[in-house]
């Protein structure tokens, strides 16, 4: 009986310490030190929230950069990866169709940027590889009338290199890219 009582007291004490005090203290410090990040790195235009820097959103217009495919349909209330089996004939067939689609916009493309024909892990990959962004320039230039050179410069200027020069891969944030494009084109 005494053993049980101790076990209950230990459990409740640790629950309050680790499950309540610790996250609340962390929240207080985080909100004081890094309020923007702590609230989800939101991008606002006036009072309206446009999105989060860190989450891809659905883009269908041919005039804008498209993010990677999302098995979650870009809905953050139900994150998901595609969970496709990559070594299957079905999958290979589908990707080859995607490649054919891509080549319609871009007939001279030889090295296919693999991120552009595959679904992301989270469903909200905010980035494209610079190659995947550049593979879309021809389409955007045709539909908007902005010179290819100009769009390419935009991609280059927004490309982030590896963190500390070592970690991760070079990438460009799609939402930032589209906002810059809209600003430039006054679409």
């Amino acid at each position, binding site marked *: 009986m005494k053993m049980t009582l101790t076990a209950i007291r230990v*459990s409740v004490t640790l629950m309050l310490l680790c499950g309540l005090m610790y996250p609340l203290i962390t929240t207080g410090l985080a909100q004081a030190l890094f309020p923007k990040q702590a609230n989800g790195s939101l991008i606002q235009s006036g009072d309206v929230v446009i999105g989060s820097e860190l989450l891809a959103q659905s883009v269908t217009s041919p005039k804008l950069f498209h993010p990677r495919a999302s098995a979650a349909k870009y809905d953050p209330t139900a994150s998901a990866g595609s969970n496709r089996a990559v070594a299957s004939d079905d999958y290979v067939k589908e990707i080859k169709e995607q490649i054919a689609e891509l080549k319609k916009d871009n007939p001279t493309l030889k090295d296919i940027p693999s991120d552009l024909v595959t679904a992301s892990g989270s469903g909200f990959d905010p980035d494209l590889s610079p190659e995947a962004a550049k593979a879309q320039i021809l389409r955007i230039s045709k539909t908007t009338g902005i010179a290819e050179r100009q769009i390419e410069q935009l991609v280059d200027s927004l490309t982030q290199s590896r963190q500390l020069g070592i970690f991760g891969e070079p990438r460009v944030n799609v939402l930032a890219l589209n906002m810059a494009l809209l600003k430039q084109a006054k679409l």
Partner: protein
Amino acid sequence: MGMGFVQVTITLVIILALVKPVGSYLVKVFDYERTGLDRIFGPFERAVYRIMGVRDKEAMGWKQYLGAMLLSNFVMLILMYLVLRLQKYLPLNPDGIDNMPSAQAFNTAVSFITNTNWQSYSGENALSYLSQMLAVTFPMFTSAATGFAVAVAFIRGLIGHQDNLGNFYVDITRAIIRVFLPLSLIVALFLVFQGVPQTMQGAVEASTLEGAKQTITRGLVASLESIKHIGTNGGGWFGTNAAHPFENPTPLTNLVHIVCMMLLPTSLVYAFGLMIKNKKQGWAVFAAMGFIFLVMLATVFVAEYHGVTALTSAGVNGNMEGKEVRFGISESALFTAATTAATTGSVNNMLESLTPMGGFVALAEMMLNNVFGGKGVGLLNGLLYLILSIFICGLMVGRTPEFLGKKIEGKEVKLASIALLIHPVIILAPTALALFRPESIASISNSGMHGLSEVLYAFTSGAANNGSAFAGLNADTNFYNVGIGLVMLVGRYISIIAMLAIAGSLAAKRVVPVTTGTLRTNTPLFTGIFIMIIVVIGALTFFPALALGPIAEHLAMPH
């Protein structure tokens, strides 16, 4: 691939550099003699002991130690289950989440108390903020501390002279207050700095560039994320875990996640060497585990860079399905090898979409279950194999096997065999059962060999208390919720019970002096035999299942 290799190497060097200092620190944490740490943590700990009603000087024999562990884990399990079942009526539920159904709540509560972190739900639509705190973040601390405590108790048994394994409550309190809490707080703040949310506010409605609605879910993510990796827990706030940009926004957070999950499992092996006053023995075990880890890492690394042959010829380089651009292939491969070695189970890419050999690595590491392994328990599994290796070598040279001067006899080998055999049984039997039932086959999302891997992976992950998934499987059915729940319980507690029994039995034994005839267990030769025995036992047990799943799939890969 070149830069990828550099990144992986630097990460491994960082982990190696931390092994000694952190290992030495761990020894101090669990040293009951007065140390410098008492000055800092002592007053706080004494206050906590008073509230808990724990007499910290009270020593426990193996049965008492085990009793305290099981009883307190059971109480926590009940508390967590209640929170999940009642979350709708409790505070801190800004997104208005409903109560969790009973089978899923059982699965979830068991999953977190056993340090598995298997999730048949997605946090962003199934848990209130309070549940994320009390039924997820809280057990992430205590389950990791429990694993730690049991490992330390076992080592005390190895070197002790009587059945006194320490005090369970003191051990978990020390692990939490001297290691987990301070480290988690610092790491959490770094994660927020890099972009991980930490807020009490509910989801926010965004109006996208094209005028569509996007509901941005968030929460107290960073405080969960830090202990998730430090405690090798692995359960994410969001469904897609550390692939989600809110859990893992940058390559630097990815680095921190990997270092955190490897930090304590690797250091504990060194601490083991220090505690038994035989550093060479610690390094011998470390070398064996490290060797298997590197082979596995190289396999998944090469497999993912190679990708699917049929697509490579169409101009696509490597396999990016289910991976994130900011991590690329190398960081995804490293994360995969680390998370299934350290039995963390978090993922930064979708494991189901790995190439067949990439998926093989994840499965195989969980099947071996001792390549560093989760907090404490991984070391225990490693020592289990060590005892077996000593026994087998002892038979070969015709001497009574002994380890650290203690004779390994029938009782210890029987207990070790039980702990060892239970692992394949609870993987292969339920997998076979699931494949008999058309209802459970209906949960499989990919057909053929890959479908077999989905089910095999689910039970392997549960048995190894890993928690990662081939996430295409719909595991939210009563069969999988209850089945995997039971597998997690057996996988966690049977081996712990057996190991503590061995500790109790060894502790009571007389130390035999070392002679020239003693089998030396810290030599390169013995380490080689140790690796062989791990691989041979693992291969003999699981090869048929692996051959039907990932290996067959690899051989049938489209060209």
